[in-house]
């Protein structure tokens, strides 16, 4: 059934839109971008900030364009001296109780409040309001909560509940004293937070930020080479997004420039998390094929996404036996750096400092997990920098990123297949696993390479792949609310799968909580951004000679020289981990 069409005028321009369209969306069709703070296209309507107010003929008060639906004959005015004044006043009032420390703020130059204030023409301060002063919650290994900078738009509350299904955040109290935080306004590390960092990604200000690791990395880099051997690894998703921080068009692959930039920053060795990704596939595919042949503990759930792993432990601990025991690519790479590479180089692992560049804030938590430490308690990964933190370090160091020549990763932990590159997009781990599993199952060298049915940024994708006369049923989900749906269907027996890929962030790592803030006039979580970034990864893959993880000669060599068999004793000791139910338990 087609929707009824509504006729209205906006700023004197007539247009026709389907009924149920909001004034904001209708205005966008005419190329009018109304200011907004609390509004987000993927989240429910809040109507809290009021900066999108418009004038409608027949009303002597302003209406909010984000929540007001159009009606027949509506006459909307989006710009008049009164409206401009009202919007300016609204933002000015928000600024009046906001800490006035833009110059020293992490979001300086990238803050939506700042941007709105500039655009709406707040040029002088007429009021001095009561400031919000709350302690900063730094208890979490991943996410810092600073309620003093909160403008109560509620985006974090909504993304946590509606996209991630975690519902860790809520507005507490009322009026001026309202504070956004976990239950009882307790500490983040004692909450059901799964550290995905989507609150950081959607926050218009600096009320949520990642835990800063740049300071410790600068410190390690400043030490003499023979005291600290500083090694870095770069996650697949970074090469598709870092360019955005240097004003390159979205989706520009910058792998080579990253390598050069890292060398110039002073890293002694530049490795690729892709190597760990290839290794993950070899281990995980072996684990998968073992389970298939025994017909037990199916479906196998992937374990690369640390946000998902936390969610598993807090919300679905009964699914732990189904989850792959494989460490994430980051942890596999770090572990090998401090074992295999250290041995090869004749270095004491204690003298090696491993930095991981990740699109993710949950990786900071993962790195700090006691399971991921050596016997003496030293973590395998010493620091985790988000894409944003690395971008800032490069700028801060005065490196002109856009003119850098391409560099190449160091060997051997820098050699990788295209299957590893696509790990950064939802469906990528599954595709990489299928490429290897197909070859192992059929014994034929040339199995299928692309699996179009699991590409794309849809929340849940399902497919049945026929390999060697067997139907392999698979599911791919991104955004934990979608994971919930898949897991509940598995639990109820409604669905039976062999292999399920779960990524915490909507769109996968390319949309991780540590990725660059959106460019002006792009929304965080924008599916178009996800598609463009994913395209970059698939193009890197398509241009590689090596396309299957198990064909990576460095991986083959690693097994011969060091690890023995996939899933063998040594591999188990170094490359696998375990999970445990955690409190507080989340309500799903």
């Amino acid at each position, binding site marked *: 059934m087609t929707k009824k069409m509504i006729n209205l005028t906006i700023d004197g321009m007539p247009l026709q839109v389907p009924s149920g369209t909001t004034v904001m969306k209708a205005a966008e069709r005419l190329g009018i971008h109304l200011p907004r703070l609390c509004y987000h296209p993927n989240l429910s309507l809040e109507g809290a900030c009021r900066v999108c107010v418009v004038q409608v003929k027949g009303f002597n008060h302003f209406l909010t364009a984000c929540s007001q639906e159009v009606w027949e004959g509506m006459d909307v005015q989006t710009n008049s001296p009164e409206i401009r004044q009202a919007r300016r006043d609204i933002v000015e009032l928000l600024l009046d109780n906001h800490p006035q420390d833009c110059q020293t703020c992490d979001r300086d130059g990238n803050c939506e409040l700042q941007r709105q204030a500039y655009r709406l023409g707040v040029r002088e301060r007429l009021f001095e309001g009561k400031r919000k002063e709350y302690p900063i919650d730094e208890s979490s290994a991943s996410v810092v909560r600073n309620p003093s900078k909160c403008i109560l738009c509620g985006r974090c509350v909504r993304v946590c509940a509606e996209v991630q299904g975690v519902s860790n955040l809520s507005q507490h109290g009322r009026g001026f004293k309202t504070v956004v935080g976990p239950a009882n306004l307790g500490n983040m590390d004692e*909450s059901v937070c799964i550290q995905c960092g989507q609150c950081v990604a959607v926050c218009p200000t600096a009320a949520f930020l990642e835990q800063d690791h740049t300071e410790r990395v600068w410190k390690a880099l400043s030490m003499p080479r023979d005291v600290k051997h500083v090694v870095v690894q770069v996650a697949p998703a970074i090469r598709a997004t870092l360019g955005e921080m240097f004003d390159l068009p979205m989706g520009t692959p910058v792998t080579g420039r990253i390598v050069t930039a890292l060398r110039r920053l002073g890293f002694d060795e530049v490795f690729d998390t892709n190597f760990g990704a290839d290794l993950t596939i070899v281990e995980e595919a072996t684990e998968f094929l073992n389970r298939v042949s025994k017909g037990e503990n199916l479906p196998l759930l992937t374990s690369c996404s640390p946000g998902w792993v936390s969610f598993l432990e807090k919300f679905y601990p009964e699914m732990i036996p189904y989850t792959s025991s494989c460490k994430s690519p980051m942890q596999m790479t770090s572990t090998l750096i401090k074992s295999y590479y250290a041995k090869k180089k004749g270095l004491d692992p204690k003298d090696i400092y491993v930095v991981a560049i990740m699109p993710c804030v949950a990786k900071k938590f993962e790195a700090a997990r006691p399971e991921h430490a050596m016997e003496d308690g030293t973590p395998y990964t010493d620091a985790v920098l988000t894409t944003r933190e690395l971008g800032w370090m490069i700028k801060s160091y005065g490196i002109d990123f856009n003119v850098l020549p391409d560099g190449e990763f160091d060997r051997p932990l820098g050699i990788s297949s295209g299957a590893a590159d696509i790990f950064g997009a939802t469906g990528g781990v599954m595709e990489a696993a299928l490429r290897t599993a197909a070859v192992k199952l059929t014994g034929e060298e040339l199995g299928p390479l692309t699996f179009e049915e699991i590409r794309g940024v849809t929340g849940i994708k399902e497919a049945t792949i026929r390999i060697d006369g067997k139907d392999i049923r698979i599911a791919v989900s991104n955004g934990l609310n979608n994971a919930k749906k898949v897991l509940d269907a598995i639990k109820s027996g409604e669905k039976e799968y062999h292999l399920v890929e779960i990524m915490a962030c909507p769109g996968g790592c390319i949309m991780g909580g540590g990725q660059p803030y959106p460019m002006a006039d792009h929304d965080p979580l924008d599916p178009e951004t996800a598609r463009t970034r994913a395209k970059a990864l698939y193009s890197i893959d398509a241009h590689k000679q090596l396309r299957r993880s198990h064909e990576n000669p460095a991986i083959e060599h690693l097994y011969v020289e060091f690890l023995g068999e996939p899933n063998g004793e040594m591999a188990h000791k170094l490359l696998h981990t375990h999970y445990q139910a955690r409190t507080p338990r989340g309500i799903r």
Partner: protein
Amino acid sequence: MNHTTSTTDNWDAVRAACLEILPEHIVAFIEQNRGMEHSESQLIAVLHMVQAHFGFLGRDKMHAVAQLAQVPLAKVTGVATFYHYFRLQPRGKHIINVCLGTACYVKGADKLSQRLMDELGIQFGETTKDGVFSLDSTRCLGTCGLAPVVMIDDQVYGPVTPSEISIILEKYSRRQKGARP
């Protein structure tokens, strides 16, 4: 509660743990609503029942409500802190209400409030550690002629000066001490 008794697929254990915290009629009410459309909209009604039974909403009680009703705990505590009516701590033996109506305010109710907070070591909405006093504010009590006014239980005092606060409180603390066996 620990994770073994709050796991959502271990329903019997959850229920048993909640029954140790909440009375049966509240558990029954929550269960009767569960599964109904928009059952989460019963949250306020449930919190009313909890407060009616215990006099306040404690953390363990809110946790039990969250588990039993399957509503995220952050939402429960968010709702509980939004409404002025809900109290998060047990009430004291004596309830102090400071009138913050216009007349009392003009006559220095803010100074009285500050003195009370200093004297008791608590903020509005809180209860002293010994459980003797709870401090609240109220709007006009209709005795503006006596402004500024403080009401303790059913007794109205006014006009009160900050220096008289300790003398008034003393009466109640003494009564409290005398009442002990």
